[in-house]
């Protein structure tokens, strides 16, 4: 394979584009505007073909307005660019084209007047284009389309139905295409489509047709019917609307195109075969206003022929319990749009709380409202009737639709007659009450707690005085020895220890030990020093010790006789201890120690 130099390739590309640019610069754009046919069937859409060659920069000016013809809208332009080589010379063809739809609403000879198109910055005026529209007699014979509005006259807020019924002769064999052309679809001024309109109904068969050449829409199969003595396969399309402004609502002519569409495969583009056209005449609807005279003040925009039926979920309740009143509104009317009556202001709402209402449009002609009440007293015997003012266009009068009052039985709560009907007040912060006054009397004029201007001086003086007193007392006390020595503390604790030991003792021996320990602590000797001691030498100097000697002897004999024999009680021992505390036992002990030596 031969290698092509990169530079040579670039030169070739430059030559191609250079040649194309020079060609474009040299040739002015060619513009052609023409109808794709001069003869059309009524209902058929023809096209104005606008083609600009030699440029892709083009635009179409304002389209002319021709009575009886619907021209436009202008679709987006299709551009193409094609490079060709003839005898080694490269040329580039570029073009842009549009197909503007044109449809006639009636038979006749039409002329589409000139209008401006612009190509590569130059303006061109088109030639007048004649168009002859003839009714498709075969289509009118083989097909049918009708638009019916019921009722013929409505008032503001009243719903109305639009039914489009169409079909074709069952003798038409080659039929695989139907296009329903409804120019008013989705854009009816002064009316809005009602919720639930177009919903499928049980037991009916549906199929889809093309609507306005753009989208598919589901229509009801009505089956075979006899039209003009021939058998037709019929379909229908129904919608409900609500009139929202008074005046005339016009529905322009509608068309049905049906026939055979050929091709449609990958290699075989779709094209029309035998096509038939038929037309429905334009229709209109008058929307009147609601009469002012006789309009009740509680009118809530209900229009139509409406009935109401009420039922409750239970007949017996306790006071304060919820009970639900279900009201079903049915009939031909604007069920979806009227406001519900305010249950709080109904007659017979005394001792009944109203908690709210839930509301739902069940079907196109059925609305269900559930009112939630709570009777508060057993005096409530029925739930009140719910009134609704409805304007009936048939009678041309305001009527009052009223549900029946619902008898109920309310049981009082145990221990209470009824609940408080009044609403609880909102909580709000408030000041706390007055303080009880102390009576103003001379004796209570003041509480004696006034700041002392000499506080610091007094406080300092008292502190100094305390310090001096403490120092003096301390020195005086310690002249006789330190009271905090272990011996002194033991002596001071002797009586307390004796009492505790006697409380714990369970034998004569333990009691003897306890009393001996007491005497030892008071005399400053070791424990046991007073057990078995001969006290005769000090009895002359300390006569009170005679009782101590006797008690010790009794305890000693009790110890040796295993507890038998008389011995001093705990109280007597503690009394003896009090007596001993007044004696200077240290001196007595010294005397005894000297005697023993």
């Amino acid at each position, binding site marked *: 394979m031969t290698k092509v130099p990169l530079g040579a390739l670039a030169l070739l590309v430059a030559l191609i584009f250079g040649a194309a640019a020079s060609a474009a610069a040299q040739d002015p754009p060619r513009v052609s505007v023409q109808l794709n046919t001069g003869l059309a069937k009524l209902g058929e859409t023809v096209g104005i073909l606008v083609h600009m060659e030699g440029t892709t920069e083009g635009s179409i000016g304002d389209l002319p307005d021709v009575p009886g013809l619907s021209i436009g809208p202008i679709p987006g332009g299709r551009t193409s660019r094609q490079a060709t080589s003839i005898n080694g010379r490269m040329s580039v063809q570029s073009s842009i084209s549009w197909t503007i739809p044109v449809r006639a609403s009636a038979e006749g000879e039409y002329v589409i007047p000139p209008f401006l198109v612009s190509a590569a910055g130059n303006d061109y005026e088109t030639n007048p284009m004649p168009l002859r529209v003839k009714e498709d007699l075969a289509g009118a014979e083989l097909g049918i389309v009708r638009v019916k509005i019921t009722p013929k006259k409505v008032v503001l807020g009243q719903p109305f139905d639009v039914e489009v019924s169409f079909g074709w002769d069952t003798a038409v064999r080659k039929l695989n295409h139907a296009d329903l052309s409804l120019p008013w679809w989705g854009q009816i001024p002064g009316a809005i489509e009602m919720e639930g309109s177009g919903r499928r109904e049980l037991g009916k068969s549906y199929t889809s047709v093309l609507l306005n050449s753009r989208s598919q829409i589901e229509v009801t199969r009505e089956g075979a019917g006899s039209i003009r003595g021939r058998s037709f396969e019929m379909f229908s399309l129904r919608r409900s609307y609500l009139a929202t402004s008074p005046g005339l609502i016009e529905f322009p002519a509608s068309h049905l195109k049906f026939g055979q569409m050929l091709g449609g495969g990958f290699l075989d583009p779709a094209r029309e075969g035998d096509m038939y056209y038929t037309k429905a005449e334009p229709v209109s609807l008058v929307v009147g206003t609601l009469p002012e005279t006789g309009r009740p003040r509680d009118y809530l925009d209900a229009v139509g022929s409406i009935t109401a039926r009420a039922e409750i979920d239970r007949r017996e309740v306790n006071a304060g319990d919820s009970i639900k009143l279900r009201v079903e509104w049915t009939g031909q009317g604007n069920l979806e749009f009227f406001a519900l009556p305010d249950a709080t202001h109904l007659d017979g709402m005394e001792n009944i709380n109203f908690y709210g209402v839930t509301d739902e449009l069940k079907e196109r002609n059925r609305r269900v409202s559930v009112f939630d009440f709570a009777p508060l007293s057993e005096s409530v015997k029925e739930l009140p009737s719910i009134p609704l003012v409805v304007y009936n266009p048939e009678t041309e009068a305001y009527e009052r639709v009223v549900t029946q009052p619902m008898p109920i039985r309310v049981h009082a709560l145990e221990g209470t007659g009824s609940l408080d009907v009044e609403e609880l007040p909102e909580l709000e912060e408030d*000041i706390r009450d007055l303080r009880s006054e102390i009576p*103003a009397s001379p004796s209570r004029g003041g*509480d004696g707690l006034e*700041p002392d201007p000499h*506080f610091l001086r007094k406080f300092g003086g008292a502190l100094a005085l305390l310090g001096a007193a*403490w120092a003096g007392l301390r020195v005086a006390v310690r002249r006789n020895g330190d009271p905090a020595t272990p011996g002194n503390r033991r002596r001071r604790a002797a009586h307390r220890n004796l009492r505790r030991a006697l409380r714990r003792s369970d034998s004569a021996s333990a009691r003897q030990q306890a009393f001996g320990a007491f005497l030892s602590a008071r005399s400053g000797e070791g424990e046991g020093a007073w057990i078995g001691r001969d006290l005769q030498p000090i009895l002359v100097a300390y006569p009170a010790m005679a009782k101590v000697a006797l008690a010790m002897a009794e305890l000693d004999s009790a110890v040796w006789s295993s507890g038998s024999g008389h011995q001093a009680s705990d109280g007597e021992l503690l009394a003896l201890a009090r007596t001993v505390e007044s004696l200077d036992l240290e001196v007595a002990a010294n005397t005894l120690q000297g005697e023993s030596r």
Partner: protein
Amino acid sequence: MNCRFLWKSLLWALLCMGFAAPGLGLEATPEAQTPSAGQVAYRSGDYASAKAHWAGALEQTTGSARRGELLHNLGNAAFREGNFLEAVARYTSAVEHAPRQSDTWANLELARSRAGLEAADRGDLAATVERLYSILRLPELELLSFGVLALLGLCLLGEALRGGRLTRCLAVIFLGLGLGLAALHTWRAVHTPAQRAMVTASGGAALRSEPNLDLPVILRVDGGGIIERVDSLPGWLRVRADGTLGWIEDMQTLEIGQD
């Protein structure tokens, strides 16, 4: 000396200090009695008469507990009249006379809120310390200081007679406590202005260099602002506000604090 007697005395003295404080006036005891003329007028909705009665009683009263009650009630009457700044001034005085009255504190906070003022107790640490610091009035601090001094005396007596580590420790504790209370007392006595007033005019009050309405305003004190009273003339107060000395109309202020 009998040791048990001394210790029991010390114990009883401690207990008495603990339980006798309310009876000594640290906490007022409510009493049941027939309603006063002020209360009767207040209950009937005649707040002006109630205020006149209580204001008259206030002038003749020296006791802090009673003054606190009267000021609380005056605050309530002003609140009911819708004079929230006046109520704030009354409650502020009341809590200084009776700093542990939760009702008065609650009313003060509500009145401040209604008057559009910041809460007296902001809830932060500084506000809590300030509240603790002012929980006792000066005379109560003095009483408490002397009580602590009495306990110190008992401890010293025990230490002199018996010695021992416990008495010495207790003596040191009470000495520190007494000195702390005395220091707190001194601090508060020095730092609490003797005479203060609150601006109760909702639009604030004008400060002039001389007591003359024709002179220019040198400072404007907002409603609820605290000013220090320095001097007075009929209809005028000489005050210090934000460091500025000047004259303010008497009718635009209310005296606050302890007398």
